[in-house]
């Protein structure tokens, strides 16, 4: 029995390949925000993604929300982009290769709670997701 918000942040059956007119761009999946209320994207302090245990270069990751796409390094400035608690963010991995067969995806991000603690020190929580996916080519 744990907090209601302590979920696997990677949504089930959300992994899809990104193939544009026959050319492989990479793959994408959906994640949730693990809190009772939404947050400004600037509150995300770190974001790490592993594919089959190997860290994905953050320059290949696009964090997509509110109809826009951002690089991980851009998140810290996005105080005007709000992640509504019922919405999923799409994580696009522009690795140039679609996924085939079975793969392990692991996500871990941290975020500060903007109304806890003041004068530069805030409570930081984590969202963690882990899924094994099988994609039939």
């Amino acid at each position, binding site marked *: *029995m*744990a*907090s*209601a*918000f*302590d979920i696997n942040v990677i949504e089930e059956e959300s992994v899809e390949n990104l193939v544009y007119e026959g050319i492989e761009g990479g793959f994408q999946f959906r994640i949730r925000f693990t809190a*009772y*209320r*939404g947050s*400004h994207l*600037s*509150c995300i302090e770190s974001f790490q993604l592993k594919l089959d245990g190997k860290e994905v270069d953050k320059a290949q990751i696009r964090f997509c929300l509110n109809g826009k796409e951002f690089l991980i390094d851009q998140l*810290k*400035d996005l*105080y005007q982009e*709000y992640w*509504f*608690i*019922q919405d999923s963010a799409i994580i696009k991995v522009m690795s140039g290769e679609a996924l085939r067969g079975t793969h392990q995806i692991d996500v871990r991000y941290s975020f*500060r*709670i*903007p*109304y*806890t*603690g*003041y*004068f*530069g020190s*805030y409570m930081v929580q984590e969202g963690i997701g882990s899924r094994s996916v099988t994609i039939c080519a």
Partner: protein
Amino acid sequence: MIDLSVSLYSFSIKFFDRSYDLEQCVKKAHELGFKGVEIVAAQMIENYPNPTDEWCEWLKGILKKYDMQPLSYSAYIDMGQHTGRDLTEDEIIQCTLNDIIFAHRLGFPIVRTQHAISPAILEKMIPYAKKWGVWIGVELHAPHNCQVGVWKEYFNLFERVGSDYIGVVPDMGIFQEHPHKLFQTAALESGFTSSQVEGSIADFESGMGQAALVEKWSVKKRRQLDVIETMYETFHEAALEDFDIMIPHSRYIHGKFYYINEEEKDTCIPYEKIIKKIKELGFEGHIAAEYEGHFSDGTVDCVEQLGRYSRMMHRLIGE
């Protein structure tokens, strides 16, 4: 006259897992016998912090459809929304003004805010509250009580300028006498044995400090340290006499609860004594049910809990 309302925050689990949308929360609030609603803006408002005109009209229609009074627009001071710095005074004023305007547009007479607004900025908000016809209530939440420094400043302010436009929203969690059942279950889940849970609660209640307790029970695991920290942060029992200070400046109370048992009793927060006390003091206004068991146990049915709370409170208020 004491009315019983509900904070839609109580449905957090169902809103988060998408089994309820906002309309279903309002509908259920009506079915459970509550009069009005609080909305936590940062949780349930689409396009927060700037909902569209269409959305505002839609919400007003939903509240009318289920005959629910708009009561409190629950706002935040998101001090840490910018990376590397806190909000400036201008930003706090403008985001609170934004909340005031949306509360007005949606018909909510109360804006609940957080103590981080500071007494000085709250005083500057009075002309805005007057103009837009809202009352700004600062939530007094655990681990605070009326003796905490910043609250002494707030009550000095209310004494000086009155509480027609600003005041306090007492959260009943401050009167919690004993860590609740769901907290104890979470403590067991973190790896404590039941005798360790009982022993550490007894030590905590006898006044042992956090560091001494951690050492005595050799708490080392991160999850267990978190449990101990939560106990110290959450379960500070304020004296019922604090109501003597709060009630003259309050028109809205947060009816926090974590678990109501099958006999429809709260064994942690002394609601019988609370209702008796606020009646004696002549409190007039709404108490909004605020279920918060979801942080300890996501499997408990919040609707069942709200039903038990509603029946318990209607009984106590009617007595």
